[in-house]
């Protein structure tokens, strides 16, 4: 073998240097997007006053969110609200005004008194514009076809909760699932670290036969606990914090969050054997909760802040079809819907609608109230689970309500060592309330019997 000469060595070294530089340049150009920013689209924020008190003035507020300006100032937006007294008839256009403060939405309009105090409530939607390209967004997404609806709370039952005393949570009647962390059948998947936090099974549901199905998205499966044992069914899910419901005929719906490669949320419908029936993108950008509606899955979505159907009778609905059927309350098989509005720090307004308000409640608490995990009819009652909290404590409050007020109530300790989907901690099935919880040792589902005759 011939010894290399100085020229060969120098040429080789120069070649490696040039190759590395060229390769880096090539990979940078091909793998990364160019430095020229594209203008993001428009988005919006609005919290509809779905349940109003008599004589309460109504100011509708909107945040218009568009591409950041190079001078660092907020988006220069505009828009109109189309509003009408009651739930039918022509809309009247009101121009939004631009305020000095943006904490509750910079753009606002005060509703005329005859609209705000209408006995039939009022309905409205907004068309908002902003940004250099004049992008436009309609809120709610269904616009005129499915406007926001606001109804008077009427003669609501007043439910003062006072100051919550922590540490008096009720013990469950039975722990129906107890699973150590792991990937074997009968165990529950856990992902994360002490530095990043831990995520466990994100949701669960209870079948009509009393078996408990847990979405173990970490191990891409649904595990089902029954008296006869545990069965695992593989499902192709992304592994993100998803919500989950079992439909009566055995279909499993998994509501996925956006992720690094799929920037929009998607509902996946699986047959009982775990094979995929279809996947459908949601109408809106964000979801709060998935539930089984009278004719298919329904999802509470933002920015519309409505319950939108995602499928009907087994068939997925397009995004416009979802938006066109938005409603303020969660629909139930009885034909009624339950409307929820958390107001301020410690107020919760609830109403059951059958066209108009059938019955309503106004719950007030001296201790701040957090999210409403569950609000569902139970015979002639309404079962509500909400969280109460201070800066360093929290507990769930369960209320069984009738037309006049509280029939029974109890607290449930919040045991949430691993994260789950936001409003997926409780399920109502039969005469019992079920709770998904976790500790350092593993996952559990507890059953609390309501002990109230329907």
């Amino acid at each position: 073998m011939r010894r290399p000469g100085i020229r060969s060595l120098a040429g080789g070294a120069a070649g490696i240097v040039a190759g590395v530089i060229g390769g880096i340049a090539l990979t940078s150009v091909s793998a990364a997007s160019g430095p020229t920013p594209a203008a993001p689209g428009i988005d919006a924020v609005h919290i509809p006053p779905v349940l109003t008190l008599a004589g309460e003035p109504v100011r509708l507020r909107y945040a218009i969110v568009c591409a950041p300006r190079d001078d660092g100032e907020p988006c220069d937006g505009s828009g109109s609200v189309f509003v009408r007294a009651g739930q039918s008839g022509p809309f009247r256009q009101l121009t939004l005004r631009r305020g000095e403060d943006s904490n509750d939405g910079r753009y606002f309009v005060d509703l005329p008194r005859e609209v705000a105090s209408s006995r039939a409530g009022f309905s409205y939607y907004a068309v908002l514009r902003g940004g250099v390209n004049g992008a436009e967004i309609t809120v709610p997404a269904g616009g005129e076809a499915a406007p926001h609806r606001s109804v008077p709370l009427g003669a609501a039952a007043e439910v003062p909760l006072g100051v919550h005393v922590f540490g008096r949570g009720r013990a469950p009647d039975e722990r129906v699932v107890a699973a150590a962390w792991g990937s074997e059948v009968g165990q529950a998947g856990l992902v994360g670290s002490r530095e990043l936090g831990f995520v466990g099974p994100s949701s669960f549901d209870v079948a009509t036969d009393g078996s408990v199905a847990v979405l173990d998205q970490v191990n891409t499966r649904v595990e089902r606990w029954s008296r006869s044992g545990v069965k695992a069914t593989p499902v192709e899910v992304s592994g993100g914090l998803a919500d989950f419901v079992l439909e009566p005929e055995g279909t499993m719906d998994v509501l996925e969050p956006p992720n690094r490669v799929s920037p929009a949320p998607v509902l996946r419908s699986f047959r009982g054997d775990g094979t995929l029936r279809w996947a459908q993108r949601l109408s809106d950008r964000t979801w709060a909760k998935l539930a089984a509606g009278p004719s298919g899955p329904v999802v509470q979505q933002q920015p519309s802040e409505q319950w939108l159907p995602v499928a009907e009778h087994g068939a997925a609905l397009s995004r416009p079809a979802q938006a066109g059927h938005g409603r303020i309350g969660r629909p139930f098989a009885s034909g009624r819907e339950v409307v929820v509005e958390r107001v301020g720090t410690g107020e919760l307004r609830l109403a059951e609608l059958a066209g108009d308000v059938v019955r309503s409640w106004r719950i007030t608490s001296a201790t701040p109230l957090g999210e409403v995990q569950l609000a569902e009819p139970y015979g002639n009652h309404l079962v509500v689970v909400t969280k109460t909290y201070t800066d360093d404590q929290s507990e769930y409050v369960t209320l069984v309500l009738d037309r006049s007020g509280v029939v029974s109530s109890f607290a449930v300790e919040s045991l949430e060592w691993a994260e789950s989907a936001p409003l997926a901690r409780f399920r109502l099935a039969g005469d019992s309330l079920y709770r998904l919880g976790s500790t350092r040792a593993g996952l559990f589902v507890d059953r609390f019997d309501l002990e109230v005759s329907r």
Partner: protein
Amino acid sequence: MKAFLVAFGIGVVLAGATGAQAYHRFWSNCNYDAPTFMTTMTRDAAQDYANAARYEGYQWGGGCWNYDDVDSYPYDTPGDPSAHGEGGDCSGLTFKTWRESTDDWRDGRYYWRALRNVHGPYTAGDFRNGVGAPNHVIGKATAGVMDAFASSTHIGMIFTRSLYGGDQIVEAKCEACGTNIFYRTYRSDPSYGGVARWGWTG
């Protein structure tokens, strides 16, 4: 010449190897421009800024992105700051959105463009404890738009409250999650505290 060409090919292959590629990946598009000192900082401008970072990915220790609505490096090794991918992490996104200084004793307003590569001096735990002149701890019940909830491991900003009592949170939570707006219940979670930036002007 033959030796040069052979070696050039080897060099191109080497450049594609993980180490060299990692160092020069998305961050090769970023800059180190000085921020613009601002006298204003409104909550809705902060919404605009954080909302525009949606879809741009997550990078542990990162703080640089563009506006093409794609995470250019979606499969970086989680927790590896040397991956140099696109996006901020939770505290980097908050730092830039809140227009903070890299000097923790300054409480002025400094506007960092998206492609300016800066993470800032604070971890989520620092924000949780109100570390730094611009930051302070607030009661969770009073936290408003573009204030934040922080734990020892994560921070997310309140895009807005919602009907069911939770919050829409804009956050860079993990490599797989990317940066986006999610519905969360941090407000009532004892592991999270309320934190805010001093100096909103509207």
